[in-house]
């Protein structure tokens, strides 16, 4: 699952900027960070380490995408 959840976000956007693979974005309505592109998470934990309020939970697992013959 890689990056799993963001709970208690204060909307500072630090995790969004520090993610090397652009996984996290700001929800325009709630003004809080959301996991928008989880498939691109490389499980490096930079978002979690930079988060000032310890809001991010990460799992070491990553499900390998289903292989299809064209897509």
């Amino acid at each position, binding site marked *: 699952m890689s990056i799993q959840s963001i709970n208690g976000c204060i909307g500072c956007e630090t995790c969004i900027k520090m993610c*090397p693979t652009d996984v996290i974005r700001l929800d325009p309505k709630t003004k809080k960070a959301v996991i928008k592109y989880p498939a691109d998470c490389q*499980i*490096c934990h*930079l978002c979690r380490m930079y988060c000032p309020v310890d809001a991010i939970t990460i799992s070491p697992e990553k499900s390998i*995408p289903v292989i*299809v013959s064209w897509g």
Partner: protein
Amino acid sequence: MTIQSGINKITRRNFLALAGGTVGMAALASMGVPASFIENNLEIDLDKIDHQENEADVLVIGGGMAGLFAAVKAHDAGAKVMLVSKGSLGSSGQTPFAKGIFAYDKDLTNVSLDEFVDQVSRSAIGTNNPVYTKQMAEHSLARVTDLREWGFFDSPLYNNSFNKPIKERNIPVMERITITHLIKENDRIAGAAGFSVDEEKVHFFNAKSVILCTGAGGFKPNGFPICDLTHDGTVMAYNIGAKVTGKEWNDGHPGQSINAASCFDGWHGMFERKPGLTSVEIHHDLGVDMNYMAYMNGNPLQMGPPGMNNQKGSTGGPYRPEEFSRKEPPGGDNKPPGREQPKEGGAPPGMGGTVVGGSSAGMSIHKSEGLVPINDKCESTIPGLYAAGDALGSYMAGAIYTQIGSSLAGSAVQGAVAAEAAAKYSKYIEFQNISKNVMNKIEEEILAPLKRDAGYSPAWVTQTLQGIMIPNFVLYIKKESMLKAALAYIEELRDHHMPMLKAADMHELRLAHETRNMILSAEMKLKASIMRTESRCSHYRLDYPDMDNENWQAWINIYKGSDETMQFEKQPFDSWPNGKRIIV
């Protein structure tokens, strides 16, 4: 080409008709293929895409260790600098994860500078450029002193310390901008172009000189934190005619067998450590020897010299000079639990425990893969275009890992060297006009994946490329028949799928361009590997297992020919591209 352009003209309506219309769609859905694999559900308004023009004497592309020093030192040399990065300062590429930095301090070692260079050169079996080896060692302590002043050693996270000297100098920084094109006018550099992932905006940069600090790249592999590195710099420089090198060498770092995709776990907590210094300790760390043992014996395998850990030794395989044989596996951080772990710094992941291969697949040895330098100033074959760090094929340590921590130090040193050269070059040259026609053509190329109604998702093409390139028997343990077989697949992706990559938003647009770069890089890697009919350092051929000093005391340069095809040439180990001898 006719077939290709014909396919590109297929509209969504025609496509659905071809697929059997709604019946076809329903059938696909029942097979478990989600509709998102098929339709390009555009999430942005193409009519709103804007463009912005920027200007700088020296444009630095990349915000890692090389980019930091390139920007700071070019500013200090009097140039008007701008730094643009695909990610954020100190938090993209490999820099955030590099915790050991080498400093050559003559007061702390009994190895002289010349002896250091000689030892590295012996380990690299001729593949290093000793001018860059010496330059790294000579300047490393000064760069480490700069870093210490900026607070680099005070935190495991580098964004603050990287921002300090940039903010003090008011250097403009543009982050989360993916650069896709370099622009050349009148046979010299004129600028660059790319797009923002946050805004629907294309950016043009008019620049007197450009320093590529875009790092290395890979195939978005599992286990190494390089999924944002796709050889962008190499490919955009190749596209404007620059020579690139180093594509046959391989970084052989393994990953852990459990949760192989988790970079953080694979590096054993190192990411949370503050950086530290490394001292003179010269090795010949192959990596590919492990791939050879896995190929011959299968899994599970234990690392180390034959006989260690009761492992059945393999005869033959990659050659390691006797002088550099190891008593224990390389990497200091995979020690069994209970043994003391260092509190700061350290080597990349160790090679002990149960491992799987390919964690850094698609990446060469640090500093061996990238633009060909024409001198010791990090200058490329295109006037005004410089590269530093992993974007420069400087062969600072050769085609093998010789010194832990030298890679990060080398990026800092080369960033500063390139900066001074680029600032000096920019003093005596005028900005060039980039014509509207050129800008329109580039904008068209950048946005093309957003405009396709149908095509292939970058995620799927990337996954297909990984299936072709990552297996052990393709890029690590090589033989001509398999390299040619893989090349046939990659050429199919290049000719048929690359022109049909689609994107629904700016994030996917970045993925589409990254995928294109990976396809071209895969082609370079396979063709260079076929060409090098010998085994040396991190390049191992089962069908040519021996070193061939008669024919292969040479690097391979790659460039785009006048007919747009990929061309290859040899450059002797002891010379610069113009044929002049390399003199230390």
